[in-house]
């Protein structure tokens, strides 16, 4: 299970880097989102996965006796997901506006000389 996740993580990072290095704005966005999800899986793997052992104390115990899942990585991933949700929502709106203005999907065309700055 862990090995599978680590492979997935590597693929997601590689695909993310590849997409970011393309020229298209949409691929840039997809790459960023993919790398963000890769990072979330990294935190998940780093928190050492235990199967079927939630961090819940039985009613008749007052301490953890078994191996249990670390709850913090889940909290971290949840926070990271919320943040990346906000970021990608903003990025989609931004790229849509930029595309409406430029009519091009090429990052190399983002250098129109500015007539006058404000």
């Amino acid at each position, binding site marked *: 299970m862990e090995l599978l996740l680590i492979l997935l993580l590597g693929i997601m990072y590689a695909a993310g880097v590849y997409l*970011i290095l393309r020229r298209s*704005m949409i691929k*840039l966005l997809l790459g*960023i989102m993919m*790398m*963000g999800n890769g*990072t979330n899986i*990294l*935190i998940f*793997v*780093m*928190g*050492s996965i235990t199967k079927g052992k939630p961090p819940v104390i039985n009613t008749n115990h007052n301490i953890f006796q078994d191996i249990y899942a*670390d709850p*913090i*990585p889940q909290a*971290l991933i949840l*926070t*990271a997901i919320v*943040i990346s949700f*906000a*970021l990608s929502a*903003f*990025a989609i709106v*931004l*790229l849509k*506006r*930029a595309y409406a*203005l*430029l009519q091009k999907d090429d*990052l190399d065309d*983002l*250098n*129109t000389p*500015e007539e*006058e*700055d*404000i």
Partner: protein
Amino acid sequence: MIDNHILAAIFVHLITAILQLIAWRKTITQRYLSVGGTFLALIVAIRLFEKVYTDGTLTLNASNWEAPFGIVFVADLLAVTLVLLTSIAGFAVSIFSTTGLSRQRMMYGYFPIFHFLLMGLIGAFLTGDIFNLYVWFEVIIISSFVLMTLGGRKAQLEGAIKYMALNILASMFFLTGIGILYGITGSLNMADLAFKIQAVKNQTLIGITSIFFILGFGIKSAVFPLYYWLPSSYHTPPSAVAATFGGLLTKVGIYAMLRVFSLIFIPDDFTKQLLLVIAVLTILTGALGALVKTNVRRLFSYLIVCHIGFMVGGLAMFTKIALMGTIFYLIHDIMVKTNMFLIAGVIRQLRGSMDLAKLGGIYGEYPKISLLIAIVLFSLVGIPPLSGFWPKIFLFQEAFGQGQYIYVAALIVGSLVTLYVIAQMWSEVFWKNAPDPSVLENKFEPMPLFKKILLILPVAILAGASLYIGLYAEGVVQVADRISNELIDTTPYIEAVLGPKR
């Protein structure tokens, strides 16, 4: 010592933002709220600074969870100094925004987002938890994205895409670093990490993790190979926004580096060498960029990059005097850089342009304003009694002492280029004969006196702060001295967070 009032400044900004959201589209109410809110935050920040200066580090366990488990907020002297400076800069920018910004931008929610940005900055300075630092960073960058695109001109959107892509990448590096760090140590509290890092056997892994943090904070603070987003985006938003960005955003990166590399990853020789090389190249490339630009704000953008190198160099040497230089420079830089972009806004109001070729004759028409601006420019260059001069003495002294002659040379080149660029700008903008009046678009002259004061007052406030830093350097040196002591010997910080039992 535990204190509930650490977060007061954050709540002041948050509540101001909420009230402004309720007063959506009522721009006049929003303006009053903004000036009132930043003023209140300034008072709160001054009180917090006084308290920490006399009583020492204060902490606050959010949600009443004990220190290594919950999120802890730590107000040590470095943090509260930066909170104070942020509040001063925020107050000035807020006054400037009331007139220096088009009404259309205010309609789209400039003020609430501005307050969210200030809240994020203060939170980032005060937190003692590394993941919480990441969250505050995200609050900062999301607000800055919105501020940067507000208005939606073509150049702004183009700048914003570059800014967005690289800043998201930076937070991703930062988050990856945090993930690995948590995997190694199982802790997120920075004071707790300081212990657990030392106990880790595989120190090479720690070194590699620290590279993630250098990359993440390096993009944020715009150091050499990672700064290209800054000059290609900072000249696009309105001046009030650029002032907040130029004065404060890159400095959060420097703050995070100072915090993380003094507390968690104590720099070894390799890291020091790496940071020093980065610093030298940042100074040189920033200076070269500033030499060739003919637009006031593009020029200032490169000067930001150049001066970031000074501070990174001080961190790289990592001795008490070098850190004093860095911290003094940080204090000076926040005040001056914010003011520089406000001045660019004033110039734009006076002449309707920011291109050096189209400017001129401001000294002849407005001698008093020009003299005020001259104080700021001299502070930036570092003419002896003014604020830019003192930190460089410390940096020079330490660099000579350690025999880092390349860094010394870079410092000299950086200072001279700053002098040259500013002198050139002064002669082009203020002394040169005014261009043909038909191309001028003077928005300043027809304004009522009240609005004129609102434009000039923030520049005067920040110039006053710079003068204070320069002329009462003794007091600032004492603060910098205590901060650098706390950075070198982190035991008081750790004891304040985790209790004295360890």
